[in-house]
């Protein structure tokens, strides 16, 4: 029986998003579990069901007979409106029960624009949105995922955070909870115990200080929690990735998810160190899984899901050292079954014809070349180790093996960027087009589809660019126009809404004062800010202007000694390394990848992955 009655479901869009019962979903007897965990994704069902981390932790938690982990998504606004009118509350998919009586409400925090949805979901569950207002008997609200490396903007809404890899940490937290629950102690006792688990951040145990000019001064353990809460929370890492939990089953939605396929996480972390890329730092060290294990998992997943596509997931597929063995093994399996393999995140410097031939046996998909910047100088500043020759060579390979559709991906607003860097982008697109016609000289061919895609750089916490400001809204618009006009009509051009990037920037480096902004905007808009149809820039802008400073904004002449709101989290990479990278960026000097030469970033302390033996 679905929690929401049929008479309501008949009136809303895509009602099968709410009824549960999907293949491989886990239903347990609630009277036989100690911990009920509501795993929330603060976006629609189709987005949430595309997310690997949720599937992974869902499988891992449900393997334990004392935990029942269920999935929760944000109801689409049409249903939410009716739910609020008629007094329905946020519910979990498996049991179709309200989550307000669960032990935990967990959110995976993937992107800043979902923060309004996070508090909307806590509210819709029937709970106070501020952690300080939640009392004994209410669930603990816990956050995980990449955005936890700067949890400050949402710290006031959460009881605790799980910073870093959750595979070991989350079961430890739940085990700690189970013992606490049996002892019947007050709420704060659980938080005190949890704070001792490596990687756990309990924001209410800390005080934030500001300078008289409003700038952030520092974050300190409150006196009464000294010796209980750590001075800095060290991000948790699973060092032995090879032997870390690997999914053997995944829920197959009825309604097509955005990424509706088998996902194989071939490695975690990245060896490259592109200076704009937060993921490149916060998942260090790069840790691989062996092809044998991955092929076994792919076969098991394929047999229990019936999916027709396998996707290899990582930050840069072809940095995976066992790629040939893995793809050979997978193709052996998929070819006979008319299945596809998709290889996202392919970098073009090691793009091999061999691999392209292999995947194109099954299906030719469009190719994306991520260059990030137009000139070599700027690519050196951001440490993107790709040259124009790499692009030309890869395009030649791609076009002569039958591809005709290419997307070139860039960013604008990067530190030190000039108009010259921007105008190099259309010039590169033209060169790629020339390569196409050269490859097909004398042949009658259709015109190629070459698209330039430009997103706006948002400086992120825990990157060497964290000390820089974002360019202004007007400047983003001007730079987009500059590229578009120089590109002309023969190329596709796509860009990110500057409004979204500006708001993302408010939140990405916000401190605790940003929670007021999130709260006020949510009160006015109701959430779903990651969807352009619900996002209201004016509301964000107005509220931001009203509140004033809400975080670290950076400056054109970066001050690497400025206190940073996210300094409470130690991602394992040293401050000294970040400063070195900043200085090298300003000199347009590159840093080799972790395999070529250890740059001494500090994550060797985890004793795992690529760092072992260096």
């Amino acid at each position, binding site marked *: 029986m679905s929690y929401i009655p049929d008479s309501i*479901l008949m009136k809303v869009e895509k009602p*099968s998003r709410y009824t549960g019962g999907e293949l491989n979903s886990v239903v347990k007897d609630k009277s036989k579990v100690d911990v009920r965990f509501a795993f929330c994704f603060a976006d629609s069902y189709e987005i949430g069901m595309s997310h690997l981390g949720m599937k992974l932790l869902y499988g891992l938690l449900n393997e334990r007979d004392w935990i029942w982990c269920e999935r929760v998504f944000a109801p689409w606004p049409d249903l939410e409106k009716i739910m609020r009118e008629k007094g329905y509350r946020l519910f979990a998919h498996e049991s179709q029960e309200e989550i307000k009586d669960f032990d935990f409400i967990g959110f995976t925090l993937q992107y800043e624009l979902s923060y309004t949805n996070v508090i909307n979901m806590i509210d819709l569950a029937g709970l106070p949105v501020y952690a300080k207002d939640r009392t004994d008997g209410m669930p603990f609200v816990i956050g995980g995922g990449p955005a936890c490396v700067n949890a400050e903007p949402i710290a006031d809404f959460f009881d605790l955070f799980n910073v870093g890899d959750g595979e070991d940490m989350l079961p430890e937290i739940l085990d700690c909870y189970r013992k606490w629950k049996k002892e019947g102690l007050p709420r704060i006792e659980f938080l005190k115990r949890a704070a001792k688990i490596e990687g756990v951040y309990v924001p209410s145990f800390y005080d934030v200080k500001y300078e008289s000019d409003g700038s952030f001064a520092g974050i300190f353990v409150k006196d009464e929690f000294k010796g209980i809460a750590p001075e800095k929370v060290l991000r948790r890492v699973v060092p032995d990735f090879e032997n870390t939990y690997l999914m053997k089953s995944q829920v197959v939605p*009825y309604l097509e998810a955005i990424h509706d396929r088998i996902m194989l996480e071939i490695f975690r972390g990245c060896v490259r160190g592109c200076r704009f890329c937060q993921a490149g730092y916060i998942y260090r060290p790069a840790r691989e899984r062996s092809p044998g294990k991955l092929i076994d998992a792919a076969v098991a997943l394929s047999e*229990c899901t*019936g999916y027709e596509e396998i996707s290899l997931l990582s930050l840069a597929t072809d940095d995976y050292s066992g790629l040939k063995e893995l793809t050979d093994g997978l193709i052996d399996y998929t070819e006979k079954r008319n299945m596809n393999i998709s290889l996202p995140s392919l970098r073009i410097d090691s793009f091999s014809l061999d691999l392209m031939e292999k995947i194109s046996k099954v299906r030719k998909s469009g190719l994306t070349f991520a260059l990030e910047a137009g000139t070599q100088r700027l690519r050196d500043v951001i440490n993107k180790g790709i040259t124009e020759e790499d692009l030309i060579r890869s395009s030649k390979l791609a076009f002569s093996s039958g591809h005709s559709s290419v997307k070139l991906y860039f960013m604008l607003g990067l530190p030190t960027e000039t108009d010259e860097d921007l105008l190099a982008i259309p010039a590169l697109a033209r060169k790629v087009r020339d390569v196409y016609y050269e490859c097909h000289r004398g042949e009658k061919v259709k015109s190629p589809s070459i698209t330039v895609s430009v997103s706006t750089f948002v400086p992120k916490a825990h990157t060497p660019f964290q000390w820089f400001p974002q360019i202004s809204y007007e400047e983003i618009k001007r730079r987009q126009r500059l590229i578009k006009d120089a590109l002309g009509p023969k190329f596709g051009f796509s860009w990110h809404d500057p409004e979204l990037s500006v708001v993302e920037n408010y939140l990405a480096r916000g401190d605790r004062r940003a929670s007021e902004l999130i709260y006020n905007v949510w009160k006015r808009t109701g959430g779903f800010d990651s969807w352009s149809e619900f996002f209201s820039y004016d509301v964000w802008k107005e509220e931001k202007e009203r509140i004033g400073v809400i975080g670290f904004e950076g400056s054109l002449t970066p001050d690497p000694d400025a206190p940073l709101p996210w300094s409470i989290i130690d991602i394992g990479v040293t401050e000294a390394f970040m400063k070195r990278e900043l200085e090298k960026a300003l000199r347009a000097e590159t840093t080799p990848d972790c395999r070529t030469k250890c740059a001494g970033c500090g994550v060797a302390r985890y004793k795992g992955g690529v760092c072992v033996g260096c």
Partner: protein
Amino acid sequence: MAADIMRLTYKRGDSVKFVSHLDFVKVFERAIRRARIEVAFSCGFNPRMQLVFGNPLPVGLTSDCELLDITFARPYEPSEIIDLLNSTLPGEITVLSAKPLIKPYDSILCSVSFAEYTARIGSISPEDEDSLNSAFYSCKELMTMKRSKSGEKLVDIKPMIKSFLVKDGALYITVATGMGGNLRPELAFSAVCEKAGVSADLISIHKNNMY
């Protein structure tokens, strides 16, 4: 008798009544993969399983008589296909029967003309039931706005309703389906309600049979 083309009749139960027709296609494709049934694929660049579904059942309806033609890569016994699929189909989706087809055969659309539905009516008095029945049988025509590909137009749907009975809070109705036209039971019901001046809604609609 082993065959390499079969017409399956399957049930769509209450728990999956909100799954859309397009999503059902995927549900079957994946169940076939899990069951390792060897089906025929279309030739070409992007090979697809050779599955042909009947008319889409609107979201929210349950049914005991949905039809699907499958072409296999080798002959199978119908009973084997029923067992294999029922062991892998999720939720309340069940194959009820499988009938071998021999070429040339009529497509699903050409081999059905009528669909029989039962629906529950949300609160209705016996007097209103009587007036609905007599309104239907006494009227010569039932002009209704009907949506089609070419837009909305006024049509007489009476000839498309083969039988109509309201009794004990339920509606029993047989309407046209297939090549000769399609009529949705709730449209027929609301047209009769309007004629009789009765206000009532259908709560759940179930398709019993197609022939």
